[in-house]
């Protein structure tokens, strides 16, 4: 018997993972949720494979507390690994138990039975099926992991590209998002967010809103203000009246947005050493140094966050698009000082989710407002402006790198340091709730501070901060900033985005300093064969070394996500006109065994396009007091005509374990673009985003230096 996979050990009861329905359907429950990434298709493929049924027979049940396995948060590119592995073992065992039950019934050996799409045939013609005996066969059984899942060469469904099970409905207009739920008797809530992150409510005349027809309740609890009304439009009108009537105390508590790195380096911090291999070594001939930065980034989902909450007899029911139903439930239980068992949290799909966004926060908003109208569901949907200004941001970072070089320009020692807030403050993990409104109540909870997961499990700001090259000596420090004027949390790939941008940019500089081709340098300094394979594949596809057109530049970057996940290399081609245009990205990705290769390609392509947007355009704007709350006008993202051509090659490795695909491309994309810009104009931009203005300034500085 092998050790139980983590998720199965935590939720061993087989019946919690799957049920057989009489009409020939297997209901499969995972604790992971669909975020637009296609995970439910991947998990369905895995279940169909191990159960030997057609993919169409698998019905993935949306996660809900109580009935779904607790698998924590759908994040960190861990879903295929966690839930997929659990399902492989659970379904393999369920299949075996069904065959055993059928064998007992017929008085034959299990090995003599034939299984065909859920039907079980005995040699003498007798037959039964999963649908008949399946539930009884697994009833009360805990997983033992004693049945080995299928070997790679026996797989028929997993490992092949299949259409996403949810996309046709979305294209045809049949799909329902959380925004579309219309529960009987449902009312609409809105929240008056403060004008700035640190503001407290000084006074409020509620009467103007109360007198509005259709307003069911005005809720005020400390600095948390909201309304419940018959329609969204009325709720919105009431909020505007309250906005006009509210007086706030504001503080100029935000750092200088144009000098974020200075603030990061001077704020109180906690320092940890991520890597320390520094003993001995010859004296360097010279030392290269460079600093890189990234600004605060917004999730900027196309849909505003939304939730529905309803109280009845002191119990709370919440519909949410959050990434962790049990985690959200735990935080709600703290806020309302009630047992978690009195709360049900159900997942309903929202728009694409790229990390810890406002989904959990809006659920608390809805629960707070619904208290005013016991028994009635209250739907809260944030405004676009609130979505961009109040969802937690991906934190700003500064990264310092140094390399000691010998006479030949080879690296003798590497030193790195990251300066950043921690990269996560997800709900359900601490004694204080991290939900936005919790710190604004009359009896407020302390504001949470972001932490970094340990480096061994991927890290946060230190994620991918240790270079994967064969350097004799490496020291990397992580300075976690302990004040958090802007509320931050996990954004896709966490610190890896900026760390890979910095490291891969800096090694380009090291290669250039030796006069060596950056691709050749990398291939010389990387020994891991899977890493070499993605680098070579991306470079080949991009036509590395072929002649370039005037005004164009080429760059490459790669990383193994978290040092233990997917290998990804990106080769970028940029064109510099009066602006920076990324024309083409050639990507090679190795996620081990790719269950749905087209799903992997889709995720990687999407991730690379989003990262191109971060790299070229994005930065949250704020002054010393307020975050700009002007919606999309103030936070432009990449448009259709700015999107580069993207070619993705999935290197299928059937014998390797599956790892996630969604966060592998971000860092390499930024790095490849930065390196391509340097290749085109000979100037390196180390501060994100790489804008035309920054390029012009850098070129000018270079000229003055050399003049």
């Amino acid at each position: 018997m092998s050790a139980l996979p983590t998720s199965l050990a935590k939720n061993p009861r087989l019946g919690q993972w799957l049920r057989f329905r009489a009409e020939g359907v297997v209901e499969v429950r995972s604790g992971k949720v669909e975020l637009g990434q296609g995970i439910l298709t991947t998990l369905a493929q895995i279940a169909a494979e191990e159960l030997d049924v057609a993919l169409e027979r698998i019905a993935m049940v949306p996660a809900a507390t109580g009935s779904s396995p607790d698998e924590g948060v759908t994040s960190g590119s861990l879903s295929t690994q966690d839930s997929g592995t659990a399902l492989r073992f659970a379904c393999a065992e369920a299949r075996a138990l069904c065959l055993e039950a059928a064998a007992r019934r017929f008085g034959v050996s299990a090995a003599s039975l034939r299984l065909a799409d859920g039907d079980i045939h005995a040699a003498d013609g007798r037959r039964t099926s999963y649908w008949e005996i399946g539930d009884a066969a697994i009833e009360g059984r805990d997983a033992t992991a004693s049945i080995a899942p299928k070997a790679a060469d026996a797989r028929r469904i997993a490992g092949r590209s299949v259409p996403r099970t949810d996309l046709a409905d979305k294209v045809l207009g049949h799909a329902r998002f959380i925004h579309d739920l219309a529960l009987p008797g449902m009312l609409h809530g809105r929240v008056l967010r403060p004008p700035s992150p640190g503001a407290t409510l000084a006074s409020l005349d509620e009467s103007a809103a109360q007198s509005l027809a259709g307003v069911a309740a005005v809720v005020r609890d400390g600095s948390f203000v909201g309304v419940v009304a018959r329609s969204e439009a009325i709720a919105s009108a009431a909020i505007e009246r309250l906005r006009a009537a509210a007086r706030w105390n504001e503080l100029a508590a935000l750092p200088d947005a144009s000098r974020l790195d200075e603030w990061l380096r001077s704020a109180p911090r906690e320092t940890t050493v991520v890597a320390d291999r520094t003993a001995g070594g010859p004296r360097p001939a010279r030392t290269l140094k460079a600093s890189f930065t990234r600004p605060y980034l917004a999730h900027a989902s196309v849909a505003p966050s939304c939730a529905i909450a309803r109280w009845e007899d002191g119990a709370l029911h919440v519909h949410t698009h959050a990434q962790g139903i049990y985690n959200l439930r735990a935080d709600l239980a703290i806020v309302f000082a009630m047992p978690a068992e009195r709360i049900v949290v159900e997942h309903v799909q929202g728009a694409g989710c790229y990390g810890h966004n406002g989904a959990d926060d809006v659920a608390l908003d809805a629960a707070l407002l619904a208290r005013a109208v016991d028994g009635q569901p209250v739907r809260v949907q944030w405004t676009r402006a609130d979505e961009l200004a109040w969802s937690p941001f991906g934190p700003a970072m500064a990264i310092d790198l140094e390399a000691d070089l010998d006479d030949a320009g080879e690296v003798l020692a590497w030193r790195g340091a990251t300066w950043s807030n921690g990269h996560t403050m997800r709900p359900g993990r601490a004694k204080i709730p991290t939900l936005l409104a919790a710190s604004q109540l009359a009896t407020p909870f302390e504001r949470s501070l972001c932490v970094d997961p340990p480096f061994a499990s991927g890290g946060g700001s230190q994620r991918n901060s240790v270079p994967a090259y064969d350097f004799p000596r490496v020291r990397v420090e992580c300075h976690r900033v302990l004040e958090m004027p802007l509320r931050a949390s996990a954004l896709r790939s966490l610190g890896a985005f900026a760390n890979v941008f910095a490291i891969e940019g800096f090694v380009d500089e090291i290669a250039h300093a030796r006069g060596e081709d950056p691709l050749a340098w990398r291939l010389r300094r990387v020994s891991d064969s899977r890493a070499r394979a993605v680098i070579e594949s991306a470079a080949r596809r991009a036509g590395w070394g072929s002649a370039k057109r005037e005004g164009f530049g080429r760059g490459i970057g790669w990383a193994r996500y978290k040092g233990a996940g997917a290998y990804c290399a990106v080769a970028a081609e940029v064109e510099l006109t009066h602006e920076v245009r990324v024309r083409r990205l050639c990507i090679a990705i190795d996620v081990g065994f790719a269950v749905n290769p087209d799903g992997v390609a889709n995720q990687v392509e999407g991730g690379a396009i989003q990262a191109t947007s971060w790299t070229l355009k994005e930065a949250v704007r704020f002054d010393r007091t307020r975050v700009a709350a002007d919606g999309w006008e103030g936070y432009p993202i990449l448009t259709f005509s700015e999107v580069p051509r993207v070619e993705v090659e999935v290197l299928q490795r059937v014998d390797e374990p599956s790892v996630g695909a969604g966060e592998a491309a971000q860092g390499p994309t930024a790095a490849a673009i930065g390196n391509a810009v340097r290749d085109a104009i000979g100037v390196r931009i180390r501060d994100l985003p790489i804008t035309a203005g920054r390029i012009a300034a850098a070129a000018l500085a270079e000229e003055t230096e050399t003049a």
Partner: protein
Amino acid sequence: MTHEPPMETVSLRVNGRDREARVAPDATLIELLRGPLELPATRFGCGTERCGACVVLMDGSPIYSCTLPAAAAAGRAVTTLEGLSEGGNASPLQRALIAEQAAQCGYCLSGIAMRATALLARHRDPSEDEVRAALDPHLCRCGSHNRMVRAVLRAAREMRESEGTSA
């Protein structure tokens, strides 16, 4: 308590059927569609004509339903994503979107599908750049742009081919 202004009746043609509903006088078209007409596939993203999630066709032209007063659609013909698959048959564009697996979360998709439908109606052979330019008012945060562009080009190709065979 202030009095609510009386509701107004709006009559219009939606997805080929005559419909009538009562809405507040300042209601927008998207409120009418998602509310009383129960057509939720038209999606709200920003409310300020900046993302395109809410785009529907009015008399064949793309418009932002998040800002258009419902009253302005009175007597007009409105098409939403639900209306593209007449009689349960997916439109050529819808088939192409599925074939290209052209979405991740799909939230942005309905507005984009409506804009693309309008483009294909007036342009039987658009170039890739023309498709991109046409879709520029639409935001997609998941990065499904290229698959969507490919789907529009595929739909155009298939529509031309089927014209050819039926001619």
